[in-house]
């Protein structure tokens, strides 16, 4: 009982990046425990996915052919069967939206605690230490779990992707779901966030977050965008509040952007936001909280109140700041 099982994530024909990161995290655990690393891929074009998962360090790949797309009822059953059959000591899943939809249920079935969104994993002598964040990334904690099997999900983009081609043995896992236990039906997909502007095309984004406080104050940022010729974007709460349309949202569930300059104003830098903008060439942050996580990835920082700094900035470019 030292083996690791990593479950790949895919959607609409594409293996998602986190799948290869899972292999790196899984390999580290396997090295620490002296076990093998198994990867599993469930549904979709499993042959194609298996080929992509065949990276150095992977000992075995198990494919489960069952429909095209993710269905959590199928995943829960298949993953539980795999863990049991392999007698795996570690189950490593992605902290993706689909991961959120099946991993807690698998842990519950196995009767094991579930530790989600790991940013670090350390295994020694029967104890797993998971590093995870709390309070919106303000603190990090070490969570210890004794005795396996261990069930953890990992945060995306924390481990490097497994790179080199491997020589794992690929085999079809013998599994047939209990159809009576399938109580959800996936009927299709819908793309959202289209419309007049495409923020992912912009060279310069002025992006606003909850620090703006009131809808009326957005005018201030609009004026800044106007005088600098920037495109306006935002974090999620601004869109949730209906203050800006969905196509302006940067982040995990919005758009990925890679402008020359990303100016984040009153945005804390939550992981789901950063997922959408860390590829910007130059990141500038204005925030009252010197410890806001956005400063970790910023090239330039202003610790200050946006209601003081932004009017000054508008004036720098010859504009007339609205009074808010």
């Amino acid at each position, binding site marked *: 009982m030292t083996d690791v099982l990593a479950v790949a994530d895919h959607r609409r024909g594409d293996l998602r990046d986190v799948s290869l990161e899972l292999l790196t995290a899984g390999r580290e655990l396997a090295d620490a425990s002296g076990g093998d690393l198994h990867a599993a891929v469930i549904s979709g074009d499993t042959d194609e996915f298996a080929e992509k998962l065949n990276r150095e360090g992977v000992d075995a790949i198990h494919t489960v052919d069952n429909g095209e797309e993710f269905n959590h009822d199928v995943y829960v059953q298949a993953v539980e069967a795999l863990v049991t059959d392999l007698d795996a000591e570690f189950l490593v899943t992605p902290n993706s939206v689909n991961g*959120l*939809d099946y991993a*807690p249920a698998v842990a519950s079935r196995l009767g094991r605690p579930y530790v989600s969104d790991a940013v670090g994993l350390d295994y020694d002598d029967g104890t797993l230490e998971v590093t995870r964040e709390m309070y919106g990334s303000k*603190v990090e904690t070490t969570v210890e779990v004794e005795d396996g099997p261990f069930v953890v999900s990992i945060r995306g983009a924390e481990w490097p992707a497994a790179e080199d081609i491997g020589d794992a043995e690929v085999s079809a896992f013998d599994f047939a779901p209990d159809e009576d236990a399938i109580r959800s039906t996936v009927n299709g997909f*819908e793309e959202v966030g289209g419309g007049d502007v495409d923020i992912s095309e912009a060279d310069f984004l002025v992006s606003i977050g909850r620090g703006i406080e009131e809808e009326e104050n957005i005018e201030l940022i609009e004026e800044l965008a106007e005088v600098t010729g920037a495109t306006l974007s935002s974090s999620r709460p601004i869109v949730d509040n209906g203050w800006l349309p969905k196509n302006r949202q940067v982040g995990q569930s919005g758009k990925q952007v890679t402008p020359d300059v990303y100016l984040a104003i009153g945005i804390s830098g939550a992981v789901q936001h950063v997922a959408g903008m860390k590829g910007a060439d130059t990141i*500038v942050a204005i925030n009252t909280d010197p410890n806001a996580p956005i400063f970790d990835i910023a090239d*330039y920082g202003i610790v200050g109140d946006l209601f003081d700094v932004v009017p*000054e900035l508008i004036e720098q470019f010859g504009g007339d700041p609205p009074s808010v």
Partner: protein
Amino acid sequence: MKVLVTVKEVATVEDDFEISGTEIEDTYLDYDLNEWDDYAVEEGVQLAEAGDDVEVVAVTIGPERAEETIRMALAKGADRAVRVWDDAIEDVELLDVETKARLLGAVVEDEDPDLVLSGVQANDDSFGATGVALAEDVGFAWAAVVNALDTEKVLDEGVASVHRELEGGVEELTDVELPAVLTIQTGINEPRYASLRGIRQAQSKEIKPQSLDDLGLDAGVVESSLDITAMYEPETESEAQYFEGDAADQAGALADVLRDKGVVGE
């Protein structure tokens, strides 16, 4: 029809704070209704407004202090509330997901709801897991990260027809059978503010205390297999160049950078 909404009182941390041991000192914490649960409460109340005879019950696991937060849910339109607490819970530093799911599961068994609405995640410890673990424990169907729910279908057909918000602006259209647990994503609706009348009415609504004993559980249920062994402020990885001075100086320095990068049209 009965809708159970799980609500958590979460702690938010002030900009400056101190850690003692494996906890943030209480003086630096403020308490509030978890953002995601605010949306879940609203969704429940909207169902009640759209249907005949829909009861909305809020449930929390939390100390007496949490009554203030659960009153907010009542003020926004929940009919009554259940608060689970016990000395045995008080002694545990962090309730792991499975423990919370078992405690909430006992309430589900008691209340027998058709639909349970919970939040995608709690803002403080962010496990993002309690709703789905609860569903599995009580044998309900589920859907995680729901950002649209067809109210009529719930009321008329007993099916939760939902959108699950995936990454990158894609939503999955899914139907789940009731009884079900849905974990609600922010933005699904516009949570109302509690009206003065609502706040007044909330004072006379019931908050039923439930101990482990009341729920027919023994203390073993809260024995956590997780242990927080360290808490610290992460070392800053910041390589940012900070602009100093007053707001005018800072803005001036930033303007120079923007001109330098060539992104500002003259």
